[in-house]
């Protein structure tokens, strides 16, 4: 959305009185100020408070990561598809899945920003302040069957995250034969681009952990398991198998 002066004054005066507002109103306000975009794709609000994942992921990191980085991908994706109405009517996941069908003049922009949009949308959902522990349900059985044990899976996943040189993601995916597999992707590439279904992914761009962990990506990878929302991961696994 574009803020005109009247909106701005309204929001500015509203922010003065945020002390008096509930957290719902505050998060609505933050989103109005931060999505910064006009188009079919909306920046999804965080499903928990910015500080909810502390001490594993700090509030400042979450603010920059969601309000700046994810908002930036959203804005750039909207801008790129604005002259292609047939893309604007598709879901972001469908656009990314059919990345080679994207017009050449916006292909790189959509690869980077469409990938960034869907990856981060998934990322917020598969974390929770009540996360961690061990998986339950169908995903638990599937992980044990594919990797031997949960510990062996974690080790493979952390290894994929540690070895992803530069910016990128570590993933648990369902491949085209519906087999669980661990892999890494560079930058904002999504497994959807290669016909695979992302069950869960961890962001290993430095912006995901640098304020809190500095150069210690390995420590971030270890700690991240404390916030994994296994209920949501199980749901995604079942959607991917369906």
């Amino acid at each position: 959305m574009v803020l005109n002066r009247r909106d701005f004054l309204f929001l500015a005066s509203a922010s003065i009185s945020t002390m008096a507002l509930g957290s719902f109103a505050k998060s609505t306000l933050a989103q109005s100020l931060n999505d910064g975009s006009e188009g079919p794709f909306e920046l999804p609000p965080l499903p928990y408070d910015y500080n909810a994942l502390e001490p594993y992921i700090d509030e400042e990191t979450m603010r920059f990561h969601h309000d700046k980085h994810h908002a930036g991908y959203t804005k750039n994706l909207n801008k790129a598809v604005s002259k292609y109405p047939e893309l604007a009517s598709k879901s972001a996941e469908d656009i990314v899945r059919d990345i080679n069908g994207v017009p050449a003049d916006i292909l790189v922009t959509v690869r980077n920003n469409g990938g960034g949009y869907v990856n981060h949308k998934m990322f917020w959902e598969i974390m929770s302040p009540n996360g961690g522990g061990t998986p339950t349900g169908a995903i638990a059985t599937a992980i044990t069957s594919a990797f031997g044990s949960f510990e062996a899976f974690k080790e493979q996943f952390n290894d994929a995250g540690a070895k992803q040189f530069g910016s990128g993601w570590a993933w648990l995916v369902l491949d085209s034969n519906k087999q669980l597999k661990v892999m890494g992707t560079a930058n904002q590439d999504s497994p959807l681009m290669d016909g695979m279904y992302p069950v869960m992914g961890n962001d290993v761009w430095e912006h995901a952990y640098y304020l809190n962990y500095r150069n210690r990506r390995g420590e971030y990878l270890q700690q991240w398991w404390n916030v994994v929302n296994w209920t949501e991961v199980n749901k995604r696994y079942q959607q991917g198998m369906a």
Partner: protein
Amino acid sequence: MAYELPSLPYDYAALEPSISKSTLEFHHDKHHAAYVSKYNNAVKGTEFDSKSIEEVIKAIAGDASQTGLFNNAAQAWNHSFYWQCMKPNGGGTPTGELAKKIDVDFGSFDKFVEAFKNAGATQFGSGWAWLVLDGDSLKVTKTLNADNPITSGQVPLLTMDVWEHAYYLDYQNKRPAYIDDFLGKLVNWDFVAQNLAAA
């Protein structure tokens, strides 16, 4: 042969407020040191052990079986070069032959600045922006992750690290502000001119 981690050519706090002491401590003592030590461990006892790091970089560029060695070698080299491209109270404009050549090859210094800023801002993910001598002409280029222009026969004259670790503690997501400060306040144009003279 073993590659030695060079000391910073200035104090850790010397580039403040543009680049903080903390950023330089992590960047030099952790990131750069790790690339150097991983390179030295990986090259030891191999057929490349007798070569200089530049020769190794050129020899294995593009070889998929040597990606790990290449990444650490190129990152070791890139960072050593990057430290020298900056100095306290740097920035400003180049002089002498370098200034003339920039005018001729880019049209003006401002045009060069625009091209260099654009290269740094549009390098998606991690990487580097460069001013290189390509044949007889100056060019601005950008490379992904560890990639380095010496692998394509170009002579690096100036580089700017745009990995997030280079600026995230000081600028967070605002990479363009880091780029502005790098050009306006940090570039060591004497070093760039020396590289051109030696090319």
